[in-house]
């Protein structure tokens, strides 16, 4: 121990000496010169302060102030070293050094990347290592002693457990017969559980099968706006979420139904391990069954999809490789085990709750909290609708998610107010007691189902329909790519492209252009804003204009070029915009399947923040993006769609202003035919390799990729719509099938008590209707509102609206009809069972 203590002391002194000396090492490189820390601070002082020296660069200013922390740390470390060598008590100084190093690390991490050199993170790391070493040296003996005692205690407990819980022998076949008979008796519960897992397996199988099928035929993922993998990834997330809800619900009902048998067995003395293995056997059996059924069904559906693909697309697709089968099975097992683990907790809670060990949760009807929820819900819905109507939100998933949250809160408020109203008046309460009572007694649980069904209705009628409808009704792709090659060339490359455009048989259009960078609202960087706070540059913070990723590239053209392009596309003389000064107009180049991309509208309502400094502009500085007044917007494809409309939109400037900012860039639009196409493609490829200033894309590849992507979207989102719709129906089935016995017993009792058949039917109807009417009304109305806003966001004209409705209306109708059919079937089944044994009464 003494030896170890001495070693620690030597190490500690060495580390703290290093911390003290480190400030004299090259700490920062500025203006081509390396400075140590005191030197840098002195240099700033000589130049009249850091702001004057660096021109107010936020990163440098923020770093400068933070540099005083390691400086202080070095001074304290020196005091610590001298003090400990002299045998003085320096505990406080020791702690202060640690705090300084912690503060510096925290500041460096938050403001990453800071300006200092990378090695400056070493002193905090060494300080931490010294601290850990000290703890170990101080507590080593105690830790070892504790560990030995714990080991001994565990060993004794294990032996004691073995002795006291000795339970030799095997269960007889009667035990397994008992389990099997129980399963057979509750087969409906198991079928529901298996069915929900089949959904998951089928879904996973199809998504991964489609992924592998499309992997070989889709080449330019990013250029078409996300590509097939993005489509599938979105589908996977959504599908997993839906399935998790379904599996969770069916599992909780299954457990509830098993509770009685389990309690009997527990009272009769079954061991906990046997009970768990019994549950596990049943659950594993269900999973294996659902896995096999899911794969068989998946193969069938995938076979059908492959046939459709082969008919629709001019490409050959491959089947699903064996490795992917294994991967699907792995994900399925992982998802099922996660569901089991989550539900195991619920199961334990419910088991103990049912046996009286835990008081069941009180079924509260929200009072004041209901109104607060309602108010919050209103705020959320209004905010998301404003987002949809505003320029920066558009069809964002966030706005939809917030809207759904708001809708749920509003529903909670309305339903709880309604229930409280009924409970508040005796006359009304007794009038409604039979039909409202079931909803009232399970208010919390019932509301959860209403929320889920409302979300399902909204997903089918808007979220999924908008993608599906937009894709199906989108314009033919040939019209969206009017030129074979679209090429942007810098001043240096213009000569080479002029040579190329002289080729016989090649039709070339050439326009002056400037590269325009636009920001998206999500490009705002919180970290950079914090740096501005340190640099006391509050104006920049308020603007919030920080760049995180490389911004999208747009094409800036003069108004005269715009008119020429219009003429070339439609043959008519385009309408003159009449731009003046720094005013701009924006032409969104995209089809109707997505929102008209909004570039950056996070500033004032009619201004767009753009950078027009040319291809080699400073992209990361917030100062480079300046607001421009937009006088007109339209959606039209004049040169071609690129990256799903997120890039290469046209920003039209007035001719005079364009002259001022023009730096010699040219937009070349080529139309080649036959043999020339290959030649031009090869030439452009070679030129782009030689000169970085040439950027181009060919429409042939884009058309093929966009076509496959569109097709995949149609298939996947149609499948998702069907699946979500089925999930909605399945959710209702789970509720009413699992609760059927209780409902039937309740109404049979009322029948015995002399309630009229007509009244029973009415009460049953009123008990069932909230689960159909509320979701369909709330979800449907929301879908209508969102669809109308979507028309505005996507800039649809009348014909496009009709085209969209033509495809989406049947989906809505089918969903409503399916819900109606389920309602009628369930009502008939329940009524039949309620009155089936009437003859035998008495």
């Amino acid at each position, binding site marked *: 121990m003494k030896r170890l203590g001495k070693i620690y002391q030597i190490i500690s002194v060495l580390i703290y000496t290093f911390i003290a000396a480190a400030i004299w090492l090259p700490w920062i490189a500025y203006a081509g010169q390396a400075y140590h820390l005191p030197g840098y601070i002195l240099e700033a002082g000589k130049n009249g302060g850091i702001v004057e020296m660096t021109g107010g660069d936020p990163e440098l200013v923020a770093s400068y102030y933070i540099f005083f922390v390691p400086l202080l740390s070095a001074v304290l470390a020196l005091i610590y070293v001298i003090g400990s060598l002299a045998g003085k008590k320096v505990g406080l100084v020791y702690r202060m050094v640690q705090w300084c190093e912690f503060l510096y690390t925290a500041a460096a991490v938050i403001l990453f990347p800071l300006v200092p050199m990378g090695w400056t993170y070493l002193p905090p790391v060494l300080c931490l290592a010294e601290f850990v070493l000290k703890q170990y040296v101080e507590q080593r003996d105690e830790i070892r002693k504790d560990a030995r005692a714990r080991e001994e205690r565990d060993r004794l407990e294990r032996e004691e*457990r073995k002795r*006291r*819980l000795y*339970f*030799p*022998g*095997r*269960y*007889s*076949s*009667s*035990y397994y*017969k*008992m389990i099997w*008979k*129980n399963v*057979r*008796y*509750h087969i409906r519960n198991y079928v529901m559980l298996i069915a929900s897992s089949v959904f998951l397996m089928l879904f996973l199988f199809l998504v991964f099968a489609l992924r592998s099928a499309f992997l070989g035929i889709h080449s330019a993922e990013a250029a078409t706006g996300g590509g097939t993998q993005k489509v599938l990834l979105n589908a996977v997330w959504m599908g997993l979420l839906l399935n998790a809800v379904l599996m969770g619900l069916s599992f909780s009902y299954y457990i509830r139904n098993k509770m009685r*048998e389990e*309690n*009997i*067995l*527990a*009272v*009769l*003395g*079954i*061991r*906990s*391990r*046997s009970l768990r293995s019994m549950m596990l056997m049943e659950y594993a059996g269900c999973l294996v069954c659902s896995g096999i059924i899911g794969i068989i069904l998946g193969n069938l559906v995938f076979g059908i999809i492959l046939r459709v693909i082969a008919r629709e697309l001019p490409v050959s697709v491959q089947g699903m490789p064996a490795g992917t089968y294994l991967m699907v099975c792995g994900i399925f097992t992982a998802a099922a085990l996660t569901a089991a683990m989550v539900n195991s907790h619920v199961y334990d809670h419910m088991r103990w709750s049912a*046996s*009286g*060990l*835990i*008081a069941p*949760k*009180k079924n509260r009807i929200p009072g004041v909290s209901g109104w607060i929820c309602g108010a919050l819900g209103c705020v959320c819905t209004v905010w998301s609708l404003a987002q949809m109507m505003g320029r920066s939100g558009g069809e964002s998933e966030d706005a939809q998610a917030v809207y759904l949250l708001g809708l749920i809160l509003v529903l909670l408020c309305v339903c709880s107010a309604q229930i409280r109203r009924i409970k508040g008046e005796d006359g009304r309460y007794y009038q409604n007691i039979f039909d409202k009572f079931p909803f009232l007694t399970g208010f919390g649980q019932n509301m959860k189902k209403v929320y889920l069904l409302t979300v399902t209705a909204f997903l089918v009628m808007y979220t999924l329909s908008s993608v599906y409808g937009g894709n199906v009704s989108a314009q033919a792709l040939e019209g969206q790519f009017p030129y074979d090659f679209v090429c942007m060339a810098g001043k240096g490359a213009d000569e080479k492209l002029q040579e190329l455009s002289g080729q016989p048989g090649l039709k070339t259009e050439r326009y002056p252009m400037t590269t325009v960078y636009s920001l998206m609202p999500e490009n705002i960087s919180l970290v950079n804003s914090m740096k501005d706070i340190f640099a006391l540059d509050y104006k920049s913070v308020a603007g919030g204009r920080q760049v995180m990723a490389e911004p999208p590239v747009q094409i800036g053209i003069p108004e005269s070029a715009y008119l020429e392009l219009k003429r070339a596309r439609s043959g008519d003389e385009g309408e003159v915009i009449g731009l003046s000064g720094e005013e701009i107009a924006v032409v969104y180049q995209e089809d109707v399947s997505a929102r008209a991309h909004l570039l950056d509208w996070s500033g004032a309502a009619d201004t767009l923040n753009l950078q027009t400094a040319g291809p080699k502009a400073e992209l990361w500085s917030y100062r480079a993006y300046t607001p421009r007044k937009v006088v007109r917007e339209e959606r039209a494809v004049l040169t071609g769609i690129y990256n799903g409309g997120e890039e290469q939109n046209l920003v039209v400037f007035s001719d005079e202003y364009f002259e001022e900012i023009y730096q010699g860039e040219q937009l070349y639009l080529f139309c080649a035919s036959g043999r020339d196409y290959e030649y031009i493609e090869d030439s452009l490829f070679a030129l782009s390799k030689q000169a970085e200033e040439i950027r181009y894309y060919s429409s042939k590849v884009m058309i093929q990729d966009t076509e496959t992507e569109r097709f995949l979207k149609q298939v996947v989102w149609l499948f998702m719509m069907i699946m979500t719709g089925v999930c909605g129906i399945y959710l209702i089935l789970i509720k009413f099938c699992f609760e059927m016995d209780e409902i039937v017993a309740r109404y049979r009792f009322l029948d015995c008590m002399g309630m009229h058949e007509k009244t029973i039917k009415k009460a049953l109807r009123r008990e069932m209707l909230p689960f159909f009417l509320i979701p369909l009304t709330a979800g449907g109305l929301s879908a209508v509102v969102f669809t109308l806003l979507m028309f505005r966001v996507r800039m649809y004209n009348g014909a496009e609206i009709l085209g969209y409705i033509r495809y989406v209306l049947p989906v809505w109708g089918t969903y409503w009809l399916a819900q109606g059919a389920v309602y009628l079937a369930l009502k008939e089944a329940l009524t039949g069972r309620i009155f089936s044994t009437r003859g035998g009464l008495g």
Partner: protein
Amino acid sequence: MAEIIRTDKLVKNYYRNQEKKNPDAKIEVLKGLDITIEEGEYVAVMGSSGGGKTTLLKILGMMEPLTEGKLYFKGKDASELWKDELADIRRREIGFVFQDFYLMDSLSVGENIMVPMILDKAPAEEMKQKMLSLAARFGVERLIGKFPRELSGGEKQRIAICRALINDPGIIMADEPTGNLDAKSSRRLMDTFDDINKEMGKNIILVTHDPKIARCSDKIFFIDDGVIVKILEKKDEDTSEFYKEILREMEEMEEE
């Protein structure tokens, strides 16, 4: 006589909505009970509804944990026993009979009787023989192939008794066993319990409201609001005097 079950200042509290920190949510069900039950005793627990009788039976049967105090089973402190040891005691040493019978709907009558033996890993042949002999003893052998839904209340209760006895436990605990039975079936059931106690020498712990049922016991604990208010012991074999005492005690409790 050896002591079978003893409680020492037994306290049981429930909490509304699991709000254990909220004193207003606390419901004190049992407030420091001291009970001793000796080998071979036939004990009844009586008292007003909500007084804590069933909770006491559940705690004595080790189906529920207690909040404070001690419970000793054959001299062992129940709080020091593991969960599976408690299960073993419930399976081998205690037989339960409930008011709602607690039969498994999926199993036949014969299988229901055999469940405790199945769980005890007993050989199939031995189980069947024991089940048949018990069924014959309680006159339910013709019901063996039937299912619980096809039986009357009295028949179900006899099946539950057969099940409680199949592992040959030392104690039978019954919670309102006659609650769902007519007078004739109740009488038969009580004769059965009497036989089990006298002939088989087993302890009976019975929760009941019915003084006619309670008079068969040797000792009665009267519980009101979680407290034992009186312990009546049968002095001789004359049940009519004991019955009068029970009625008198019940009247006093009602007046209070």
